[in-house]
């Protein structure tokens, strides 16, 4: 069933048991992103020290794809340097735009390869990208103010 390629077990696991959900009290940058077509919302806090992301926490409402994706991203990108995180984000974005032609590199993307099936459902790509774009925005805010250096 085509639907199973979208709703991989690992996605439903993250959806039901999200990682890093619940906002940390302290943070270096906080962003709020929405998906205006469906009303999904996410708030994301990140902290960094010496160029390394030390904490990613989030809260929000949304579909299983958006919630699982941000859960995966928060787990994958923490303890990474900004450049490395950006490279992972780039890899993930390309996977999402691949229209089902890429499987994703599990060495780089880890659990996020489970979202590969999303690329076959154009309406859901923005769900999967919501948390990643929020992260990108927050990371830019930190790096442009040098607060993470």
């Amino acid at each position, binding site marked *: 069933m*085509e639907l199973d390629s979208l709703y991989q077990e690992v996605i439903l696991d993250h959806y039901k048991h999200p990682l890093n959900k619940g906002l940390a009290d302290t943070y270096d940058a906080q962003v709020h992103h929405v998906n205006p077509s469906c*009303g999904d*919302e996410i708030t994301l806090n990140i902290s960094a020290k010496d160029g390394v992301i030390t904490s990613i926490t989030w809260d929000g409402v949304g*579909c*299983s794809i958006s919630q699982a994706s941000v859960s995966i991203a928060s787990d994958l990108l923490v303890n990474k340097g900004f450049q490395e995180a950006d490279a992972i984000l780039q890899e993930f974005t390309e996977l999402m735009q691949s229209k089902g032609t890429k499987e994703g590199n599990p060495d780089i993307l880890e659990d996020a390869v489970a979202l590969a099936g999303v690329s076959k459902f154009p309406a859901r790509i923005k769900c999967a990208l919501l948390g990643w774009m929020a992260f990108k925005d927050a990371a830019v805010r930190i790096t442009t103010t040098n607060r993470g250096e």
Partner: protein
Amino acid sequence: MSFNVAKVRKDFPIFERTIRDGKKLIYLDSGATSQKPLSVIDAESNFYKFHNAAVHRGAHQLAEEATDAFEAARLKVADFLNAHEDEIVFTKSATESLNLIAYAMSNAEPGSAFALTSNNRIVVTEMEHHANLIPWQQLAARTGAELKWFEVTPEGRLDLSKIDSIITEGTKVVALTHQSNVLGTINPLDAIVKRAHEVGAVVVLDACQSVPHMPIDVKKLGVDFLTFSGHKAVGPTGVGVLWSSLLNELPPFLFGGSMIETVTMTSATWAPAPRKFEAGVPNMAQAVGLGAALDYLTAIGMDAIFEHEVALTGYLIDGLLQIPELSIVGPNNTDSRGGSVSFTVGQIHPHDLGQYLDSQGVAVRTGHHCAWPLTRKLGVPATTRASLYLYNDESDCDALFAAIIGAQKYFA
């Protein structure tokens, strides 16, 4: 004779195709846009094939035929609404129709009937589609007028208990939907129209969800402006309608060719309504297609369509309420209610539910349905909406019920 859905469906070529690997198309998204009968597709296509020319200009036979077809479509719209043809403006969408009214009011001479100042009020409701909210927010911002609104009760009806303190002296516009695109609620108009006219306000009715589904007589409604879109009424996209009996007093919004009477290098005067609101070469093929759409609906009969949809809505609501953890957002019965039924299913997010339904061939809408303030008020981030039309029957509802139960198992 009962309503013959099987016969109706044969008129719509799209029902010949299948969805997601051979599944029957269960189209329950007519609130977003309706499917088109062959007669409409042919009318639009035949205009291009045989009669295409710019209307109201050109000294040749094609221009004559195009003008005749375009103006005949205007007459059909007028007849459909029990209005006069000079009261019908073709726009590109209902959204444009509503913006036209709001922007035209901005263009009104200070002190004239449609001019607003900070002493005036604009009244809307909490159940408006963004298209009938934001143009008024913006008009209020441009003029300094105050924006007020009727609230929605938990069961999805307008709370009219404070009507006299909401529609006050100085109110110039009361803009509301005839039927909510989310809740299905059909709003009572008599008290609102009476109060609005008492204080000298005009009533603007967003009839996108009512004109396609029930008999509409603008004289009986008593409103001053009515808008609807062609594509929700089995017509083409790219054509909307603005009806008003006050067009002569309303200043124009878009300026250019066709809408003028005389032009010098420094000034211009306007053609009579409706022409002064139709600048540029209009959407001719789409207007002609809309004329064919209204012919199609008229031949079946708007009373029969409404009766069919009310009965089917009752069947839909009853079936949905049998499903555990399902809550309907909006009236739970068919009193003053049309065939848009929004609901939530336990903890399943509407996007996920919609995706599963799609895998079963069932097309629904999910999200906030361009009525974000309403879903926020009702405390749901999003809903799933099934919306019915003349080509739906009980088997479509049964397929929806089965698919929702399937989704509950899938996401359990």
